[in-house]
């Protein structure tokens, strides 16, 4: 379960997020939609516990499962108790794979540092996770360099890297952005399947309504750093503000929050 209470964040003097109240039940998949720059990624980074106040002040409270008040955990404690990755996983907007090493090292490095596993156990886990993200049929995949992968393959490898640590909460930041429609659909279906098979609690930030329809149990619409709507997907499509947004009629010039 993810509970966000009265959360606010500023970068410098600019308020980015305000009055965020959000509850995601255990096993539920919430999709976060909203115009570019409304703060979706920022919110996800805070739930993932990878932002601190050096980038700008925040207030409020975030609980993820039994990790109470995540924002107040000191860096060392988060690191030593291995909360990040092992409890809360995150898929980044561009994948953020480590480009100084190959696919195998990308996948085995976090596993090696977080668990005491033998090399064969690590390889077994990697194989079975690659099957789950439908990458097991590619020849010589493990020894490929990151730059040799297509956008969709990078996304799947990044997803595998997060899943390998077996988190029970996943945050997906624009999992389908920059992919062609069939590949985007595949990734969305994959995320939905993972939610169901692993019972993941998840938040997905996206602009893509087609994948939102596949992934979402519930939808949350954000604008100007605030939540404007939470509800079922069929309800959201009749909401006037969201309809405008989906039809490309957001007035970006008027977008300010004070």
């Amino acid at each position, binding site marked *: 379960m993810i509970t966000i209470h009265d959360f606010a964040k500023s970068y410098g003097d600019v308020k980015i997020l305000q009055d965020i109240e959000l509850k995601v039940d255990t096993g539920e998949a919430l999709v976060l939609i909203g115009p570019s720059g409304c703060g979706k990624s920022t919110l996800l980074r805070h739930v993932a516990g*990878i932002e601190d106040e050096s980038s700008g002040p925040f207030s409020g409270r975030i609980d993820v499962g039994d990790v109470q008040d995540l924002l107040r955990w000191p860096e060392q404690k988060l690191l030593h108790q291995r*909360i*990040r990755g092992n409890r809360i996983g*995150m898929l*980044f907007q561009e994948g953020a794979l480590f480009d100084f090493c190959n696919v195998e090292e990308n996948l085995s490095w976090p596993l090696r540092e977080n668990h005491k596993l033998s090399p064969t156990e690590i390889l077994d886990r990697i194989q079975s996770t690659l099957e789950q993200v439908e990458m097991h049929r590619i020849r010589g995949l493990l020894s490929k360099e990151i730059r040799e992968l297509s956008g969709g393959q990078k996304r799947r490898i990044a997803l595998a890297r997060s899943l390998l640590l077996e988190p029970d909460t996943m945050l997906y930041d624009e999992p389908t952005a920059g992919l062609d429609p069939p590949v985007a659909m595949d990734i969305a279906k994959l995320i939905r399947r993972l939610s169901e098979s692993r019972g993941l609690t998840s938040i997905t930030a996206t602009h893509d309504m087609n994948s939102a329809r596949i992934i979402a149990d519930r939808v949350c619409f954000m604008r100007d750093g605030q939540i404007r709507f939470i509800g079922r997907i069929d309800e959201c499509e009749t909401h006037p503000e969201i309809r405008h947004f989906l039809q490309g009629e957001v007035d970006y010039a008027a977008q300010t929050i004070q």
Partner: protein
Amino acid sequence: MLATRYLSLGFAFLGRNVISFLSETGSSLETLGRSVRSIVTLRCKWRRSMDQIVHIGVGSIPIVTIATFFVGMVMAVHVSTALAQFGVSLTVASIVCASILRELAPIFAALLIAGRAGAGITAELGAMQISGQLLAMRSLSLSVEDELIAPRFLATILSLVSITLLAGISGILGGYIVGIGHLDIPFATYHGKTLDSLDSLDLYCGLFKSVFFGLVIAIVGCHYGLSARGGASQLGINTKRSVVTASFVILVSNFFLTKAFIHLFE
């Protein structure tokens, strides 16, 4: 006129870099503290340190040894012409030896490593920062200090110390070439003079300097890498700043270190 203008422009440029670095001294000292802790508590990753030593050190050996070889030759030529009027060109060996070990080898090795490895550290860490790979590491409970920063500190210092040693040897050999080939000093004489004047104090001073310079290169390089924001152009700027700042700090601190050694030991 023109010269003073360029001089003042040069100083302004240097000043900006050094000030921007010093103004963030807090965060660079924090980086230093965290990597020292990572090394002392043995959480620093040795395998990554070895990779970095190969990367930083081994690759720099040819350029540094060749450069100091020629510096040694130039030294010998200059010293011999200056001393010729006094008819004491036999002391060439001892002067070359001391100045190479104490000053030239540490300085040249450090400047070349700052340009080669320091810039590389900034560019690598900066690219990882900008592309979100450092955030990804955090999100996977991978410690940036233990995996990336501390190994670079360790590798820079170890590499620079050993390269300074090699540079010293190669600079002294450069002196041999000029002394024996050009000044017609017999090998046995030149060699004997060199052995006589080899002083372990010179060596220790040189090595202490190289440890210090290695630390400077690592702090500056990591600092500008970790603080890179924005895009590729910012990364280019930070890389340039890293080299300029490290070189400047090395050259200035060298003077004070030399003064301090003379004050302490002589």
